[in-house]
């Protein structure tokens, strides 16, 4: 009986998580377009609903009713598989991510995470690395030179940025003496990691921008020079899958930044509910992503590689050494 309740609770949490992650991109696209508009002295969407609030719904209907086009020379199996491969890993990662300690519902303590893994950080990096398969398969299967170029760039970018990203969090793990994300947040109760790990935060966030394939590192879809990169040939709901995946990865990088460097749900000064603190911090980083997008130009391919190998990798290694010396 107890087991059944526990399993039921896990299923309920996962369902809630999936619903949240599938629905969040809708308001996020609206917010992104509004921010883009106002930064360029435009208004953004205005015509569907109050201030264009129903625009994402209209876009969703449009994408659902569009023709699902597969190019004649495409590898049909991989072409159909790629959006799913791109969408699934970011969702899987959220299983290991805690959103808070626990809340009491009807007298029962319910934890705000699906599982408290002791190697959660390792799990996150292992699974998020799989997302690149969707991009590579999508680019390869479409049999278009733009798509192949986009996916090749992504491949190189992911390899060169996952290494500094992994090194950057080692400092955090050293401080918390644990790889569990829950323990990492608990270790930051008094002082956030950003105080001890500014270099680590910098490297992690820049690598996270590259990981989420956002400007200034959105070389995989570089609409100026590659059409739309790896999803040039995609249309309809398959394209929507790639879009949702992009937004979920953006959320994921924001959430990870908050958990690893900004104290998770620990508040400062103003006593707010922990979950609200968490949401506010994540929202700030999501805004930062969008703000960057409409400010910076895109890096050239060789510059991207140079930053990854010549700047971020030595910086992250130096960070490990400094942390090791300072806290030994």
């Amino acid at each position: 009986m107890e087991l059944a309740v526990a399993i039921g609770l896990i299923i309920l949490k996962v369902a809630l998580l999936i619903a949240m992650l599938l629905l969040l991109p809708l308001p996020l696209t609206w917010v992104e377009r509004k921010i883009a508009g106002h930064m360029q002295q435009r208004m953004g969407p205005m015509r569907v609903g109050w201030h264009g609030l129903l625009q994402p719904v209209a876009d969703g209907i449009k994408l659902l009713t569009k023709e699902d086009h597969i190019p004649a020379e495409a590898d049909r199996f991989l072409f159909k598989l790629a959006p799913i491969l791109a969408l699934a890993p970011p969702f899987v990662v959220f299983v290991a991510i805690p959103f808070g300690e626990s809340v009491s519902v009807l007298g029962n303590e319910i934890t705000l995470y699906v599982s408290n893994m002791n190697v959660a950080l390792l799990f996150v990096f292992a699974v998020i690395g799989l997302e690149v398969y969707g991009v590579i398969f999508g680019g390869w299967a479409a049999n278009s030179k733009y798509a192949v170029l986009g996916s090749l760039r992504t491949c190189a970018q992911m390899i060169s940025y996952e290494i500094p990203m992994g090194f950057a969090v080692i400092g955090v793990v050293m401080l918390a003496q644990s790889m569990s994300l829950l323990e990492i947040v608990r270790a930051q109760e008094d002082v956030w990691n950003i105080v001890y790990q500014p270099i680590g935060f910098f490297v992690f966030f820049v690598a996270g921008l590259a990981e989420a394939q956002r400007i200034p590192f959105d070389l995989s879809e570089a609409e100026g020079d590659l059409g739309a990169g790896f999803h040039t040939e995609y249309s309809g709901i398959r394209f929507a899958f790639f879009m949702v995946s992009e937004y979920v990865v953006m959320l994921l990088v924001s959430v990870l930044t908050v958990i690893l460097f900004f104290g998770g749900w620990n508040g400062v000064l103003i006593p707010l509910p922990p979950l609200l603190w968490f949401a506010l911090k994540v929202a700030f980083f999501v805004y930062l992503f969008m703000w960057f997008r409409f400010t910076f130009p895109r890096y050239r391919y060789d510059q991207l590689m140079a930053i990854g190998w010549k700047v971020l990798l030595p910086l992250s290694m130096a960070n490990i050494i400094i942390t090791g010396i300072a806290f030994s």
Partner: protein
Amino acid sequence: MSRARDTIGTWIGWTFFADLANGLSLTFGYMFSKSVTMQYPDKEKWLPYSRYRGHHFLKRDEEGEIKCVACELCARICPCYCIEVVPYEDEKGNRRPAKFEIDTARCLFCGLCEDACPADAIALGQQYEFSSFSSRDLVIGRDDLLAKPGKAATGGGVVAARLNTQKDVLVETDERQGYNWWRNIRRR
């Protein structure tokens, strides 16, 4: 000495991403600045200046009679031959146009007809919304030309308007005078 200091300053700036921060602060400032969008068919509409050359109109004199004397000078000077005038003699013995047709599909809105007119009868007014699905509908007759709106009285402003799609697609407005859009969008 000062040059070396400048170089060092630039390097320090680069180390702390001064240029990136500059760009970010600029876009952040723009985010809270006034939007330049004119919400044209939905909420606002542009009223042109009085010198604007829009749709032609024919004028009437004080007695309400058409001013045109059907001299056909406008038809002669028209560079694209889009005006067709057929004269007749009315009951008072005056020469008036029986037919006055302008093919606005061919017209290039140069305003030469307005300059050539000896009776100050034809002019180019403020109306600019007369697109059509058929080029035949763009041949405008005498009575339609008499009913067209004249020159803008004040002009050069944005007025509140609304889109009316009840029987025809129209952008309606009640206001005569708009606010100065150009001055409004300028950032302090």
